[in-house]
């Protein structure tokens, strides 16, 4: 936070902004790293506790401990949630009214905001309504594992790569949907009379179709010749679908890496344009490299290429 904005906020606002910076973690410093590690380890410990608690013998032996730990985590996560809602009001610096709630609303209805809410709040419900079903509560507790994805920047990369190829993905899914409808109706028509116990309805045939797609064999042997042809076609479709999905993912990743390399190359070119590489520029390149997760080798190759391209012009 620079000095000018710091002056305009006042003491409380400054604390608020600072809390936002620490929790948001966009600019990494010591405090925000410590907070991040603390929350992430608490989440991991929580998930381990949920898993261990489901073992009956451990549950009986350490019930007290699990309960205390759960209460402690709920308190920590509640504090985190309240602090986030409060401090995200200072996400946008400015004086217009309504700006504070813009940041808050963005957080509240973001995926992370919803995860934070639903993984914590149901526990207060239990206090008020002791009769609630425990299994549902446990399922909500499991949501805490998704809090981790906030700290995994590579996950964002993956979703970004997939998003940029969403047309191909949706066409693959569309193909799957169409063939699911077509093949399961066909198998129902052809084999429904001969094997009424396995294909009593189209939804049951759909179940068979999905099974065949994911594991190669749907637990049913066809009895008619058409049925055999259909099963074979479905199995081939399963292989084709796997190949299509793989190809799309591969393309998405390659495109992403190339996009980043050319972005980085542009930056290097800009830095080298005036012939001098200042400390600040070096730092900037380092940050970009870290953000893109590029290896030193890649960076070196790019720098070398830019340099050799410059030479003939000199």
């Amino acid at each position: 936070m620079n000095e000018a904005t710091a002056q305009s906020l006042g003491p409380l606002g400054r604390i608020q902004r600072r809390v936002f910076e620490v929790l948001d973690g966009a600019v990494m410093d010591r405090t925000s790293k410590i907070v991040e590690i603390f929350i992430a380890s608490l989440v991991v410990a929580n998930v381990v506790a949920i898993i261990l608690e489901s073992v009956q013998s451990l549950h009986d032996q350490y019930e007290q401990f699990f309960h205390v730990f759960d209460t402690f985590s709920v308190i920590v996560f509640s504090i985190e949630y309240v602090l986030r809602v409060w401090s995200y009001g200072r996400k946008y610096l400015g004086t217009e009214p309504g700006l504070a709630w813009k940041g808050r609303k963005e957080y509240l209805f973001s995926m992370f905001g919803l995860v934070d809410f639903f993984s914590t709040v149901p526990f207060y419900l239990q206090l008020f309504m002791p009769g609630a079903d425990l299994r549902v509560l446990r399922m909500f507790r499991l949501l805490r594992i998704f809090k981790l994805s906030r700290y995994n920047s590579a996950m964002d990369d993956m979703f970004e790569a997939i998003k940029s190829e969403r047309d191909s993905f949706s066409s693959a899914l569309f193909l799957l949907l169409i063939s699911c409808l077509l093949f399961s109706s066909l198998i129902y028509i052809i084999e429904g009379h001969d094997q009424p116990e396995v294909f009593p309805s189209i939804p049951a045939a759909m179940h068979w179709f999905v099974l065949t797609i994911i594991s190669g064999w749907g637990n049913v042997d066809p009895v008619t010749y058409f049925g055999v042809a259909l099963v074979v076609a479905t199995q081939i479709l399963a292989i084709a679908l796997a190949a299509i999905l793989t190809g799309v993912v591969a393309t998405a990743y390659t495109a992403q890496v190339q996009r980043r390399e050319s972005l980085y190359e542009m930056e290097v070119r800009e830095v080298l344009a005036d012939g001098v590489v200042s400390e600040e520029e070096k730092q900037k390149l380092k940050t970009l490299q870290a953000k893109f997760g590029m290896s030193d080798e890649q960076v070196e190759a790019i720098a070398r290429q830019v340099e050799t391209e410059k030479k003939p012009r000199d």
Partner: protein
Amino acid sequence: MEVLDGSPKHAISRYVEWLITIVVLVNCSAVILDSIPEVHADYKDFFHELEFWSVMFFTLEYVLRVWSLGVKFAANEGGAWKGRKGYIFSPFGLIDFFATMPFYMHVFFPTLDLRILRVLRLLRILKLSKYNTALQDLFTAVNSERRAFGSAAFLLVIATIVSASLMHFAEGHEQPQHFGSIPHSIYWAIVTITAGYGNVEPVTKAGEIIALLTGFLGVCMAAIMTGIVASAFSNQMSRKKAAYQSQLRQVLSDGVVTDAERESLRRLQQQFRLSDAQVQAMIDEHNAEQAS
């Protein structure tokens, strides 16, 4: 040192490489054959002799390597021990050490479990990877995409835990022998993700849906992993091509190609394993650019 390291291609260096490769292969076949009881009974003495002489051979190799790598760096670059330490703690150094050393331990502590020693003997096959540059390529490619792999692994862990827990909540009461606890159903989830539809039939409707989704997720995970590897390889290839191209451009820029330059280009081509056709295409492209 140059003979063992194999960096400049001498004839002797190649012979030594071949010799070590053959001894390693013979050793591994011996370990495999030795595990058949009848063969073991008939040729026990022969295997014992073979083991003794190959351990001697590998020990000699190890000692020579440690001794000779002392001259890898000049005295002002860190001295004799820098090169040695670099080798001893490299993966290859550790493999060389652990593939040989257990034999001596057996001599000093005769009560040790023989099975562990036999498994360590199989480590010798990893010595071969030193001579396989394609394998090293594979590691670099995977290493450059380690973030993508990390996120895929993260996704896998989350998916396993979530689907196992949901299955436990849905079917824990109906099939306590399979889904009685979450660790128990994690096994089911892993089987379903890796091998397709799992070893246990769900009995509830919710369980059925979870099982199908988990199986479908397995297909997606396989696609993601394969996709990342494919993309890593293709990116590595294009990086190599670009590096070679810039080298080529530099050589051709002054219009004269000296013998030294040709030699260095040829070596680079071999190192990057580019085919002659690819190189020719690059030269043509450059010529076309010059002409225009």
